C-alpha cells in the first residue's frame, strides 16, 4: 500500500517530480560518465605505461632497486636462456623481455651526446610494446646493428633513419668500448623525459658493448592483465634471489601518482555533484512536503507514527530516485555508445607531449554504485526536508492550508 501510495504520489505535482527526477537523473548520468572517464583515462594510461616501457612488471636481483651500486652489473642476473625459460614456464607469463640498461655517449658526425641505452630483444619487444610509437623508420627487430632513438635524442643528434651512430660505453671491466649502429627508427612514448635520452639496441649488442653475458632486468608480459599477484607469488617461490616489481611501482612518479591524483579529483567532484543533487532535492522536496502538511497531520491523527510518515515520504523518494537514477544510467550508456563513441580528445597530460583519446569505460559495478548514490541522495535530501514536518504537532499540521 505504501509503495502504491508512493508511486501515485509522484503524480501529485508532476512538474516538481520532473524537477527532482531531472536533478537526480542528470547527477547520476554525470557521475556515471565521470567515473567511466576516470577509469578510461586510468586504464589507457596503464596500457600506455605497460606497452611502451615496463611490461606488467619486472624481475631483478633482490634489493637491486633499493640501492645505488658502484658496479651495478655485478648485481645483474645470469643472462643465459635457462633463467628466461624458467620464468617463461610460470603459467601466468606470456612473454619475457631481457634488458640491460647503461649510460653511453652517442656520436653522429660531429655531434656527441650522452644517452641512456636499453639493450632489448627487439623482435620480441616489437610484438608486445605496441604503444612505443615509431615516428620515423621502423621498430627494432632482427637488425643486428640497429638502433632505435627516442624522438628528443634523435632531434638533438640530428639523426634520421639510415644514419650511422657510434655508441661509446664503459665495459663491465672498466675499459671503453664502442660499436657502430644504423638508425632503424625514431620512437616516442609521449613522455618527454624518456624520449629525450633513451635509445635502444639489441641486447646481444649491448652485452658485447658492455662485455658481459648478464642481463639487468626481465620485463614480464602476462596472459591475464590481472594476474600479476599470482605471477609475483610464483616468482618469489621459484627464484628466492630475485624480486618482482609491478609497473605501477616502477612508474610511481607518472602512473601511480597520476592515478592517485585522478582518484582524488574524482572524489572531490563526486562530493560536489552529490551536494548539488542533495540541495536540489532538498529544495524541491521541502516545498512539496510543506504543501502536504495537512495530509501528514491526517495520517498522524489516524495513528501513523512520525516514522511511518517518514517511511511513506522516503518510499516516494526511493521510487523517484530509483527511476531517475536508472534513467540517468541508461542515458549515460546511450551517450557513451553514440556521442562519445569516438572517445574524447585530450590535450597532453603533464609529462607527455602528445594528445590522446580517452574512451569512457562504463562498467556494471559503476552503474550499481551510481544507482545506490542516486538513491542515497534522494533519501538524504528527503529525510532532511521531511524531518521537521513529520515531527511537528498534529494539530499544527492539520491547521496548515
Amino acid at each position: 500500500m505504501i509503495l502504491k501510495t508512493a508511486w501515485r504520489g509522484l503524480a501529485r505535482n508532476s512538474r516538481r517530480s520532473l524537477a527532482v527526477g531531472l536533478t537526480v537523473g542528470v547527477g547520476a548520468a554525470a557521475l556515471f560518465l565521470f567515473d567511466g572517464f576516470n577509469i578510461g583515462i586510468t586504464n589507457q594510461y596503464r596500457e600506455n605505461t605497460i606497452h611502451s616501457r615496463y611490461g606488467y612488471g619486472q624481475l631483478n636481483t633482490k634489493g637491486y632497486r633499493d640501492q645505488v651500486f658502484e658496479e651495478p652489473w655485478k648485481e645483474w642476473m645470469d643472462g643465459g636462456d635457462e633463467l628466461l625459460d624458467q620464468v617463461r614456464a610460470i603459467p601466468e607469463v606470456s612473454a619475457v623481455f631481457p634488458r640491460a640498461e647503461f649510460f653511453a655517449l652517442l656520436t653522429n658526425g660531429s655531434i656527441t651526446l650522452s644517452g641512456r641505452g636499453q639493450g632489448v630483444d627487439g623482435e620480441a619487444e616489437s610484438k608486445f610494446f605496441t604503444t612505443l610509437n615509431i615516428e620515423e623508420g621502423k621498430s627494432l627487430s632482427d637488425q643486428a646493428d640497429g638502433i632505435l632513438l627516442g624522438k628528443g635524442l634523435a632531434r638533438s643528434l640530428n639523426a634520421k633513419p639510415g644514419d650511422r651512430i657510434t655508441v661509446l660505453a664503459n665495459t663491465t671491466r672498466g675499459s671503453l668500448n664502442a660499436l657502430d649502429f644504423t638508425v632503424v627508427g625514431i620512437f616516442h612514448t609521449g613522455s618527454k623525459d624518456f624520449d629525450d635520452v633513451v635509445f635502444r639496441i639489441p641486447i646481444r649488442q649491448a652485452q658485447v658493448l658492455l662485455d658481459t653475458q648478464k642481463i639487468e632486468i626481465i620485463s614480464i608480459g602476462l596472459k591475464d592483465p590481472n594476474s600479476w599477484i599470482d605471477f609475483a607469488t610464483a616468482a618469489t617461490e621459484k627464484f628466492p634471489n630475485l624480486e618482482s616489481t609491478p609497473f605501477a611501482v616502477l612508474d610511481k612518479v607518472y602512473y601511480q601518482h597520476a592515478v592517485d591524483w585522478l582518484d582524488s579529483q574524482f572524489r572531490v567532484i563526486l562530493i560536489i555533484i552529490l551536494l548539488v543533487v542533495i540541495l536540489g532535492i532538498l529544495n524541491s522536496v521541502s516545498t512539496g512536503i510543506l504543501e502536504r502538511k495537512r495530509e501528514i497531520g491526517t495520517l498522524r491523527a489516524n495513528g501513523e507514527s512520525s516514522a511511518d510518515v517518514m517511511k511513506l515520504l522516503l518510499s516516494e523518494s526511493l521510487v523517484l530516485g530509483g527511476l531517475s537514477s536508472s534513467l540517468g544510467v541508461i542515458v549515460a550508456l546511450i551517450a557513451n555508445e553514440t556521442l562519445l563513441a569516438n572517445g574524447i580528445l585530450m590535450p597532453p597530460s603533464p609529462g607527455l607531449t602528445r594528445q590522446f583519446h580517452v574512451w569512457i569505460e562504463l562498467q556494471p559495478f559503476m552503474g550499481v554504485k551510481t544507482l545506490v548514490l542516486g538513491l542515497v541522495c534522494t533519501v538524504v535530501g528527503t529525510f532532511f526536508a521531511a524531518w521537521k514536518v513529520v515531527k511537528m504537532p498534529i494539530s499544527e499540521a492539520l491547521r496548515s492550508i
Partner: protein
Amino acid sequence: MLLDLSRSKPGSKPSKFEAETLLEWKDSPILFDCREISFDYFLGNTKMAALEKVSFQIRSGDFVAISGPSGSGKSTLLNLLGMIEPLQSGEIALDGHSYSSLRERDRNWIRRFKLGFIFQSFNLIDVLNAEENIEYFVNSQGLGMAERKSRVEDALKAVQLWEHRFKKPHQMSGGQRQRVAIARALAKKPRVILADEPTASLDQTTGREIIELLKKLNTQENVTIVVSSHDPMVLEQAPRRLRLKDGKIQSDS
C-alpha cells in the same frame, strides 16, 4: 472487547502498553471521562484560555454535539479527546486509560485502533481513490487482505459510495468526499468517531445527509459520535448537546 495482537502492525513488536494493557482493553460504559481540562493557546506572549476546567463524561454509544460560538473551545476540546493536542492540565481517560500515562507509541496505537476522525475539509489523500483512501488506514491496522477488503466494501456501502469507489477526491462532490471520510473512520471500527465541523463545507441538504448518516452509524453500528459544530441543524439532530462558551461548559442537555 478483547484486542488481539493480530491487529498490531505486522512485524512490529508490541510495546509494553500494547502487551500489558491493550490486550486486556475492555470497553467501559464511560467512554470519555474528562476532569478539569484546561488548555491555553499562546499568541506571541499573550496567553489565551481556550478551555477552563472543563469536566464531563461521554458514555459509550452516545451521540454528542459540542456547540458554541467561534473561539469557545469546541475544536480544542475535540482535539484533546482525539489526542491531537497535548493535554496541558486536567485528565482525560478513554475506557479508563488515562491519557497522561501514555507514551507516543501508545497514543499512535489508540489513534489507529480506537479513534476515527472526520474533518471539516475532508482531508483525503488526493492521489488515492475512494477505496484506497480507506484501505490505507485499514492496512495500517495490520489486517489480512480479505478482512481489509471486506471492511472497505462494508464502509463504502454504508455511506452509499460503493459505485464511486474508483473516483479520486477531485472527481467527487463535497458531500461524497465527506462520506468517504466517514467511511474511512468507520472502516477502522473505532470506539468513537470525532467529527470536527463535518457539515461546515457542505450545503444544507448535503450536511443533513451527512448527519443522518452519522446518526445511522451511531444507532446501527453502535459507534459513539462526538461532533463539534455550530450548525443548528446538527444540534437539532444530536440527542445530547454540550454547549461551550468562553472555554467553559454553559449547558449539557
